[in-house]
């Protein structure tokens, strides 16, 4: 993991936060003005994107300075921490919205300034469209997972804004009807279900990523011992990365072989190294990456 990657992540996180702040402000103003459940939900959605962005900004800055984390912490861990924070925040926010929505169904109250909320939400939609476009460009240039996650968030936010505007328009058109007071809370409750399921999946995958551990020191010494046994078979040694998840052990070893060696010779040596590591540390998956 090079410092360049962390630097790039840091810049992307800064961009993400700067781009998202106008969305947070507009949705907050729209929510205050309208007191509409769906607009409050959109505000929470916006904050749930900015909050992990700030976290990522801090973490990537720390990783650029601290070698301890730099050595064993990969991009996956950073993304997992960020995703976990994001999803926990999302779940907490959705929980609050659910409570408010249920309360509003029991004690219905009129929504106000829906026209103003609609204008502000439309501005928010334009910002989201701009962000979506910029993030799509970034995804085409950079294929890292974090950029892909940011692009997916932008898409989610754009769809959510569309639904908010649609709900506000319905609210304005049918403002004289009795049932309209129940419309926004019901849409909120309906939206909470698929969002919660999606968040649950993301959270579970983030937790899985975080419980991945590096192999214990004894096993790592045994890997080094095996590599020494095949000392004359390779030219250079690169990174050795390992992770353990439950009983599953995965080891990635980067080796450079002599340019004169045939494919068959390299394959045979790799097979022997894998077999010896398997004998030393037990059942595991060894990948030999040729550099």
């Amino acid at each position, binding site marked *: 993991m090079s410092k360049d990657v962390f630097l790039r992540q840091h810049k992307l996180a800064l961009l993400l936060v700067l781009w998202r702040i106008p969305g947070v402000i507009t949705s907050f103003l729209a929510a205050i003005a309208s007191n509409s459940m769906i607009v409050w939900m959109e505000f929470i959605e916006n904050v749930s994107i900015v909050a992990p962005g700030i976290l990522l900004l801090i973490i990537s800055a720390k990783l650029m300075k601290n*070698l301890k984390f730099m050595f064993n912490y990969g991009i996956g861990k950073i993304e997992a921490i960020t995703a976990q924070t994001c999803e926990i925040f999302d779940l907490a926010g959705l929980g609050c919205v659910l409570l408010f929505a249920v309360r509003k169904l029991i004690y219905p109250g009129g929504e106000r300034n829906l026209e103003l909320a609609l204008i502000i939400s439309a501005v928010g939609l334009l910002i989201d469209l701009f962000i979506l476009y910029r993030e799509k460009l970034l995804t085409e240039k950079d294929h890292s997972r974090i950029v892909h996650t940011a692009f997916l968030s932008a898409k989610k936010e754009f769809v959510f804004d569309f639904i908010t505007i649609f709900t506000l328009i319905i609210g304005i058109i049918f403002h004289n009807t009795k049932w309209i007071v129940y419309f926004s809370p019901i849409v909120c409750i309906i939206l909470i279900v698929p969002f919660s399921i999606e968040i649950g999946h993301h959270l579970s995958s983030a937790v899985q990523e975080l419980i991945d551990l590096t192999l214990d020191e004894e096993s790592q*010494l045994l890997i080094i011992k095996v590599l020494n046994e095949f000392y004359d078979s390779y030219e250079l040694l690169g990174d050795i990365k390992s992770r353990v998840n439950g009983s599953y052990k995965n080891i990635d070893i980067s080796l450079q072989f002599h340019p004169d060696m045939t494919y068959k010779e390299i394959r045979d040596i790799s097979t022997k190294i894998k077999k010896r590591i398997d004998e030393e540390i037990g059942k595991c998956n060894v990948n030999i990456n040729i550099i």
Partner: protein
Amino acid sequence: MTINKDVNGKALTISLEGRLDTTTAPGLEEEINGSLENIEELTFDFAKLEYISSAGLRVLLSAQKKMNKQGKMVVKNVSEEVSEIFEVTGFSDILTIE
């Protein structure tokens, strides 16, 4: 861990003080990679090295491989603890230890 470098013509001596582990190994690797150009004799002085982990061993192995192509590498003043780790992992067979 403290890393001291002493360049004398085409000879480079790296003295380590403290622990060479997961935390400090990347720093040493960076130092080595940035200093090996035109070096034909690399010496590691482990007189004040207290501990070496698998991450440190990987850096040594990597350095030895590089020096095979451009000269030689020697490790000296190895403590009993470090020597034991070298024995167990087979490093005593591939390193030149003085």
